[in-house]
């Protein structure tokens, strides 16, 4: 059924349930793109090649958006990492005719690969354009195939995919915590991008826990949400940067 397979021996959960979210501190982000690479490695995201990427078919689940301002030699780059915002009121969810995407109880915008029939309606509906499509069958030329993550499906052609907040890592941490009969600690679950970021610009946690790092950071004066006016209520919160960033 729709609920996860939680039995009576469930790990103890906080009384109000989880609401996963991420805070991205744009003051710390250097635009190094380590998060992009890490995400590819963790989630079996294929590389499409130069021609396809030039035609707008790159498959980054997280991307560094970069805008140039000003004229050389006084030009500046303004950049921010953008990934699936896991919107609480996601415009991509109601439009899928087969329920391949829905909102889980933990606040994740779930994407079910084997249900997707590829209408790409969700891709058109997403205002952040974070959903990517498998235009061809992915290729992992040797020895890249050895690096594939067994926790994550390898998708076939014709399927939409996007950032899942590394839901496989969330599950894994919760299972480990359950086995060890302890609650999951704040900061224990780290999606690949969070884990890799060298400047700790990305922080992941539970917004329903008022003491978690994400909750504290979200209360900062610098916080804002992307395209807030559209009413999508994203679960990704940005902290305004200094001079170089947004």
């Amino acid at each position, binding site marked *: *059924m*729709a609920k996860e397979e939680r039995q009576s021996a469930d790990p103890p959960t906080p009384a109000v349930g989880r609401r996963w979210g991420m805070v991205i501190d744009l003051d710390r982000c250097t635009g190094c793109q380590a998060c992009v690479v890490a995400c590819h490695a963790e989630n079996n995201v294929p590389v499409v090649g130069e021609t396809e990427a030039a035609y707008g078919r790159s498959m980054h689940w997280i991307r560094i958006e970069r805008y140039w301002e000003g004229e050389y030699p006084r030009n500046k780059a303004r950049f921010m990492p953008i990934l699936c915002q896991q919107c*609480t*009121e996601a*415009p991509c*969810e*109601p439009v899928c005719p087969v329920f391949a995407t*829905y*909102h889980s109880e933990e606040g994740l915008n779930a994407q079910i690969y084997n249900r997707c029939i590829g209408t790409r309606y969700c891709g058109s509906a997403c205002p952040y354009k974070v959903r990517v499509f498998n235009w061809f069958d992915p290729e992992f030329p040797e020895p890249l195939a050895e690096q594939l993550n067994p926790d994550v499906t390898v998708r076939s052609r014709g399927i939409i995919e996007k950032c899942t907040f590394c839901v496989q890592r969330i599950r894994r941490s919760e299972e480990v915590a359950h086995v060890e009969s302890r609650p999951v600690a704040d900061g224990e679950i780290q999606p690949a991008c969070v884990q890799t970021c060298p400047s700790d610009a990305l922080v992941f946690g539970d917004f329903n826990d008022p003491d978690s790092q994400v909750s504290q950071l979200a209360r900062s004066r610098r916080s804002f949400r992307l395209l807030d006016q559209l009413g999508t*209520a994203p679960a990704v919160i940005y902290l305004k940067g200094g001079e170089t960033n947004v």
Partner: protein
Amino acid sequence: MSDTIVLIGLFHESTQTADAIDQLYQMGIPEEKIVVMTGVPFPEQALGRHKEWIHLPYIVLAGALAGLLFGVFLSVVTPRLYPLTVGGRPVVAGPPAVIIIYVFTMMATIVSTFLGVVWEMGFPSFERKYYHKLTTSGHLSVLLECSPGQESKIIAVIEAHGGHHVHQPERMPI
């Protein structure tokens, strides 16, 4: 069976046909035993005949209701069977339900109109029937059942009103 014979006569024109039929009534041929076949629809009662009761409107209403219920089932019941939250909306959403219910009501109305009219006309029926091919070439065919004794009088009446091709038809494949 051997007591009645079947006759068919062709007319060019509606007034002559109506006059002939009136005279046939006066001769005692009951209305149910007379069938008029035309290639063109004549207005109701132009030929002096009764309007018949049809069930079609009720079939259509029943169909519309069935469609409405099916639409309600799909849009209101199925989301509850396997509830999935999408877009922060309630599991059963109002305006989409209205659309689905409306469309299925229309679909069922249309299908039940078609099936209803086909059923009511007794179609498809491919058994041999009394018919004349010239019907679709602009003639009005009057088909009637009578006793053998009346045959010559009926033929006279028909021919007096301009009818032609009067004969006892064979059942033909239709």
